[in-house]
């Protein structure tokens, strides 16, 4: 039995999350991945933004920062650039990362800075009461989309790949064991890693869309997730309501802080010669 308790700040329990929320599944997966990598906890820094998922940082016994809405990646960039020996993990949600924080997300991926971003995508703004976010599926209902969402949705992982992230993966809270491996891989990647995890919000998204119990919402994840290999063999019609899970892109590129260190070393060597 995995000892979660040693990693948790139990005096801050109970968790604020609703029964059936996917955030706890992601938190446990993250702890298993960190434990498996034997990361010294003084060297782990967890940075989050604002929202349900971003409360995750406070429950973990690491160096933790709960930042402003959408800005977790900017704080994390400062931490990594100033102290590169820290393992910096960012926990964020779909609204935090792709709406208010969208610009930072694009540029952190472009820099390919060595951060591991765990984006818990529950398709809704949960904390503020179920408003529609950039990932709310078209047609789905939300408190601000009472007649169904008329907007197009973001392909978050596709955005990260296009911006130049070194590692991009997607999974679901149903596939918790796969999440462990993807998070491990993301942490080990020397560059920007995105692990997008589809998670159920039974309270806000579930009720508005009559998605059923938390267990039924997880079964929906199972039934609509396909591997990239399987997706290749499927027709566009078959793929209409499906999403791919697993490693979506591995793209080794120069990493931001390491490249800057090379610059420092080169400049200082030139200075010394003078």
């Amino acid at each position, binding site marked *: 039995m995995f000892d979660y308790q040693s990693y948790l700040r139990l005096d801050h329990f109970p968790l604020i999350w609703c029964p059936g929320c996917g955030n706890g599944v992601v938190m446990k997966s993250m702890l298993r991945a960190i434990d498996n990598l034997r990361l010294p906890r003084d060297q782990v820094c967890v940075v989050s933004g604002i929202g349900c998922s971003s409360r995750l940082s406070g429950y973990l016994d690491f160096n933790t920062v709960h930042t402003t809405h959408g800005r977790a990646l900017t704080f994390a*960039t400062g931490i990594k650039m*100033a102290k590169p020996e820290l393992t910096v993990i960012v926990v964020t949600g779909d609204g935090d990362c792709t709406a208010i924080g969208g*610009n930072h997300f694009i540029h952190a991926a472009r820099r390919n800075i060595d951060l591991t971003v765990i984006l818990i995508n529950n398709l809704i703004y949960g904390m503020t009461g179920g408003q529609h976010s950039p990932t709310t599926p078209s047609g789905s209902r939300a408190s601000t989309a009472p007649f169904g969402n008329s907007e197009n949705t973001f392909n978050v992982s596709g955005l990260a790949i296009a911006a130049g992230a070194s590692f991009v993966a997607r999974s679901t809270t149903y596939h918790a064991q796969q999440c462990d491996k993807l998070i491990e891989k993301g942490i080990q990647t020397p560059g920007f890693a995105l692990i997008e995890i589809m998670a159920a919000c039974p309270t806000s998204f579930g009720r508005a869309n009559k998605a059923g119990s938390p267990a039924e919402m997880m079964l929906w994840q199972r039934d609509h997730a396909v591997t990239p290999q399987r997706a290749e063999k499927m027709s566009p019609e078959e793929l209409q309501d499906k999403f791919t899970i697993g490693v979506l892109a591995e793209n080794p590129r120069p990493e931001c802080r390491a490249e800057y260190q090379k610059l420092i070393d080169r400049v200082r060597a030139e200075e010394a010669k003078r």
Partner: protein
Amino acid sequence: MTRSSRPLNDPNRRRPPRLLTGNEACAMAAIDAGMRFYAGYPITPSSEIAESLARWLPTVGGVFIAMEDEIASMGAIIGASLTGVKSMTATSGPGFSLMQENIGYASMAEVPVVVVNVMRGGPSTGLPTSPAQGDVMQARWGTHGDHPVVALAPYSVEETYEATVRAFNLSEQYRVPVILLLDEVIAHVNEKVELPEREALRIVERPKPEVPPSQYLPYVDTPTGVPPMAPFGTGYRYHVTGLAHDETGFQTNDPKVIDAQLRRLHRKLELGRHDIVEVDEFLIQDAEIGIFAYGSSARSARRAIRLAREKGIRVGMLRPKTIWPFPDEEVRAWTGRLKAWLVPEMNLGQAAHEVEWAVAGRVPIRRLNRVDGNLFHPSEILRAIEEMA
């Protein structure tokens, strides 16, 4: 308890004279103060600070990063500071507006950072290449909530150097964001300076915990009101948040704890008030008319005072080097010996409002304002002095 954030141990130890702009002096001083992380976004008239630091920081092993906007710049310097590295950004009006939310975070989470705001004409995009002093109130009240902040307003290139070192000292000593208010003229003017020797600088570091990690409380009250700050990655694992928090750093809804913590944020500056607030007094000892001016306006005022003195008018100046917290005690102290105050500023009366508050109707206050992107000509100020004499 005596504390001092004064930047100089020995004001007489100076480097040879040279020509320097305010922006260059600011960048040099930041490095000399131990700043090793800069994040910023280009904006006139502050860009030379970024350009200088992009060149100089790597030579001392520091980091320069060009962020995607000013919101990101502010977030990055807070993150870097949490690791124990002195950090800063520089901007101008529009960028300063974007930084406000995270400046509030730095106040609330007590993260030392220095923000340089080279003021230009506003509002909005305004006058990018002209001086103004329109951000005095924004420096104090730009972010939401009752937050503590310190702002310095140097008036020359040499003073910009010292004010920059002092900004870092204050931010470290009090764990507070410090705003350095320059304006386009101070930033771009080439002036002869004799900078203090590096060895003559007094450099202050943030208070460090003296207890083991198991006993560390990152937001504990202390006699100075300033809690010790542990850098990330040194065994002190704690939580930082912009939410109202208790002494452990975790969110609380306990009204008593929230009240005590918010009042402590202000008390730490009140306790340090006489260290933080610094003014310069120029020919005010026997004056009947007192000028209250800062930054570029104080340069014009100095000249006007000389000219008025030649005409036998007894006029002098109280010049705040620290504009926030406002030097209200100093204004009040001189008010009893003056017939009237004159407040020239390149805005529509921002500091004047504070002067009026401090004076509380005891003597008349004349405002003199420019918002056309031009400096005061000394003759304008002289004319006002003559009318008041």
